[in-house]
């Protein structure tokens, strides 16, 4: 296990624009990270640079203090789990799990103990003798995972969308197993995914990527409460964060002439244009009669999601969504909306300036 | 400096391999224009300077002294290989599609057994097949006839077509056929309008295999024909006499391989157009 340091690492294929723009980053030993973003955002390129499959066109990579920039994957001491199961079909489950250890000439007794431990972790103990080809695709992927975990001396465990082939119903269980296993193993884990559920459930820290850049690095809670850009506000959370054009006036921050947080502490030197306010649908609610500083809204539609209702409203020319519990009666045509001021996010040119006013 | 060294190595290997492939052709080409003197005079490659070029070898293929007339066997070979390949391809594609998409039961035999039945015909050594083929053709009065040869070749080429095509069809999702039927195609319509256009690369590969195997067969052509329906590989053998006529053999080798080279070039152009890539994921 090791700390992974990327120094001014960037990559482009030939003379194309950067697939990954030069950046610095330190991934701490023993923590789990998710690289999250839509396809084409550079997350797989980043993983391949760390694993050694791709040599970056710029910068250095260090495992602890060892420079591995030109070291190929075989010399880096990392384990990787791919999207699709990569296993030896003709061998038994046991042999599959033991293989990486045999290659390193571990003593038999130690291999046995370690394989038993991993099998137990993944609930594969009863199937160790089975030939791998008899297993379902879920179980095969579990073995791939086990093979990634079985060596306790790896610098890092890298996973590239490992749940792609898993049946949606099984994903929950496997996600749970993954989380438990990675917590127990204390490996440095890097997990690539486009699914925010997977990323947020699994990782200590998430690196949200877009167009070859890491736009934010933070815990799931930070991404939710303090998105660094409006893009993160959109990408994280369901439904996405509501964002309104705002202006500064006599009453502080105002939306369409209505002050929403009078007297709030505003950062100094705010520009007069490009100001926007974001609020999560969870933090916007129907106003009570005694509330002040509420916004007039027209209800456009109500979606019944079961446990919650999503109410779409028009506030001036802007559209917004509220998430209301089932016990709250959805409003009729007109409503007044209250935004929780401690949860307001202030953006200038789509970059977060302040969270909570 | 590492990448440079690697590039140098790469091109050396490619160059070496190209030389390895091209050299026999070069040798055959020069030899075909030599006479006995030229051949025994050691390795010489440049006409007029190193040896006196002669058309003796080429003449011997077209009724020249001590030679043969290659035109008729050549045409025979084209007719037999061409029609047997075409028929095998059509039948084989249909059979493979059926085996890939529908469940059959022939007594206790299921799809896998039917498939094995096809390939089993290529497992036996040719000599085992030759006698029954001979007797059958004799019974049908088709010995030493092009039709007889075509039938025998179909039996030999069909398994190849089936095996190549079934693998291809198995890789096309069934939902594509279903979708075509939902869109209003009959099962045959789905096959012709949707599955066939998507199997073009497979059909080309299967066709190529059929043509190569058919064109190069010597054994059956030799055992089942005498004079009338002689094919190219058999006719060429007649060139051999007490003194090996290298010049004639070289010329015949070049002329024999010509159609295959031509087809290889055509196919290569088709494949490199990217028709294979991305057609089926």
């Amino acid at each position, binding site marked *: 296990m090791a700390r992974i340091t990327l120094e001014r690492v960037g990559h482009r294929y030939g003379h194309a624009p950067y697939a990954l723009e030069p950046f610095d980053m330190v991934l701490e030993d023993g923590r789990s990270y998710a690289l999250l973003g839509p*396809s084409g955002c550079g997350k797989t390129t980043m993983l391949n640079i760390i694993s050694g499959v791709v040599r970056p066109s710029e910068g250095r990579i260090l495992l602890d203090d060892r420079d591995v920039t030109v070291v190929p994957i075989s010399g880096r001491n990392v384990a990787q789990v791919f999207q699709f199961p990569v296993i030896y079909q003709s061998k038994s489950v046991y042999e599959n799990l033991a293989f990486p250890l045999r290659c390193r000439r571990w003593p038999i007794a130690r291999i046995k103990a370690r394989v038993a431990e991993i099998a137990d972790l993944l609930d594969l103990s009863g199937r160790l003798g089975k030939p791998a080809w008899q297993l379902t695709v879920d179980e095969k992927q579990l073995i791939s995972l086990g093979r990634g975990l079985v060596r306790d001396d790896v610098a890092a465990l890298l996973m590239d969308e490992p749940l792609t082939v898993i049946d949606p119903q099984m994903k929950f269980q496997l996600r749970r197993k993954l989380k438990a296993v990675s917590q127990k193993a204390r490996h440095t884990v890097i997990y690539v995914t486009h699914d925010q559920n997977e990323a947020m459930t699994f990782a200590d820290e998430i690196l949200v990527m877009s167009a070859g850049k890491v736009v934010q690095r933070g815990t799931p809670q930070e991404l939710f409460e303090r998105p660094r850009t409006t893009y993160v506000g959109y990408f994280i959370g369901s439904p996405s964060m509501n964002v309104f054009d705002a202006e500064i006036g006599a009453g502080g921050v105002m939306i369409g002439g209505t002050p929403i947080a009078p007297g709030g502490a505003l950062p100094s030197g705010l520009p007069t244009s490009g100001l926007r306010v974001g609020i999560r649908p969870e933090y916007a609610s129907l106003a009570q009669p005694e509330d002040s500083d509420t916004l007039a809204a027209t209800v456009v539609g109500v979606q019944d999601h079961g446990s919650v209702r999503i109410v779409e409203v028009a506030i001036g020319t802007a559209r917004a969504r509220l998430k209301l519990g089932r016990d709250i009666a959805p409003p009729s045509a007109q409503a007044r909306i209250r935004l929780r001021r401690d949860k307001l996010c202030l953006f200038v040119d789509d970059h977060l300036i302040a969270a909570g006013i | 400096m590492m990448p440079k060294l690697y590039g140098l190595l790469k091109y050396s290997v490619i160059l070496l391999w190209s030389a390895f492939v091209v050299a026999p052709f070069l040798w055959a080409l020069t030899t075909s224009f030599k006479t006995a003197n030229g051949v025994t005079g050691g390795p010489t490659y440049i006409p007029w300077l190193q040896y006196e070029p002669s058309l003796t070898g080429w003449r011997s293929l077209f009724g020249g002294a001590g030679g043969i007339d290659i035109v008729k066997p050549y045409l025979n070979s084209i007719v037999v290989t061409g029609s047997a390949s075409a028929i095998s391809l059509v039948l084989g594609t249909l059979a493979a599609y059926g085996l890939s998409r529908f469940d059959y039961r022939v007594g206790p035999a299921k799809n896998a057994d039917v498939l094995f039945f096809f390939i089993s015909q290529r497992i036996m050594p040719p000599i085992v097949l030759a006698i029954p083929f001979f007797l059958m053709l004799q019974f049908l009065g088709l010995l030493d006839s092009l039709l007889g040869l075509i039938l025998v070749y179909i039996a030999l080429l069909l398994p190849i077509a089936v095996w190549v095509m079934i693998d291809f069809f198995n890789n096309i999702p069934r939902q594509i056929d279903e979708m075509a039927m939902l869109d209003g*195609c009959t099962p045959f319509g789905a096959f012709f309008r949707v599955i066939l256009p998507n199997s073009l690369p497979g059909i080309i590969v299967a066709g190529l295999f059929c043509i190569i195997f058919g064109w190069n067969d010597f054994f059956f052509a030799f055992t089942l024909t005498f004079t009338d329906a002689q094919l190219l590989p058999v006719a060429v053998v007649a060139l051999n006499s007490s003194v090996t006529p290298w010049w004639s053999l070289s010329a015949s080798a070049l002329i024999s391989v010509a159609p295959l080279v031509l087809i290889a070039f055509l196919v290569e152009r088709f494949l490199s157009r990217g028709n294979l890539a991305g057609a089926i*994921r």
Partner: protein
Amino acid sequence: MPLHLENLSLARNGVRYLDRVDATFRRGRLTTVIGRTLAGKTTLLRTLAGLQAPDSGDLKLDGVSIASVPVWKRDVAMVYQQFINYPHLSVLENVAFPLLRRGLKAPEAQLRAEATLAKVGLSGFAARRPSQLSGGQQQRVALARALAREAPILLLDEPLVNLDYKLREQLREEFRGLFAEETKAIVVYTTTEPAEAMMLGDEIVVMHEGRILQVGTPVDVFERPASTAVAEIVNDPPMNILPGAVVDGRIALGSYRLALPAHLSRLAAADYRFGLRATDLHVDPASEIAGSLVFAEISGSETFLHVETAFGPLALQIEGIHDIALGTQVPIGFSTERLFAFAADGALVVAP
């Protein structure tokens, strides 16, 4: 008369995919079929389409049996889970293909295909091959091909399941608009996701192990699930089902005794299974009921806490993203007003 299924059954290799299924699908309505994997949803759609023949039972469209009408004459459009398009045809040709097969003239087919592509937001992509598109775009092509036909029956088999999260959210909303225009067609949409079934469906059919467990409006099914099985299927996370009893006019849950709320006041003393939605549970420091956190799952904007308590595992859904260490003792509060009571055999007795 609409599309009517009578007593459909289908089994293969000893597995019952459809088990005496009776259902009615009406024109101009969208029916969502919800169930877990292998509930028989896909088999149901394939039987409707004619891709699979039932072992027994009948299908009637406007009172006429269509069970023996082959697929290609049935005029049913379908969208698959996998993104199925014709790889050798351009996007435009893909959408025009079924129109041409049904006898439309080429110029007319092209016009209609173009219009439908515009509707699904793919106008600029008409000349591309499907393989040059992203997953979401490929599924839009498949959808356009199904919509362009204006078929009387439109089937969608978990069309969003293979797309990533944000896209799923976005397309789901677009679907609402697109299907609102389908005023003449019978639309059947399968899904495993309760929210999707609720927001899209005019009517919900709940399936489990080949059988239809309940049919009703979304609100009906959600608020009055006929059985514990339905309650688990139409809630995500599944409704918590707690074995308990009514003893001496009180609710017994494990060693806890709770007062009977008004809506349960008439329950006879017996064993029951009490249901509680994850959203009706909350973290309540004052509560004496507590359990150890075994797993925390984050779904978009909610945190699901999976807690092991003295009377079994409980799932809580709390709004927002919360970071709670595994193993923490979570005090759990809920209102007995929110309790569902099911009989020992699973049938609903009282809903809140």
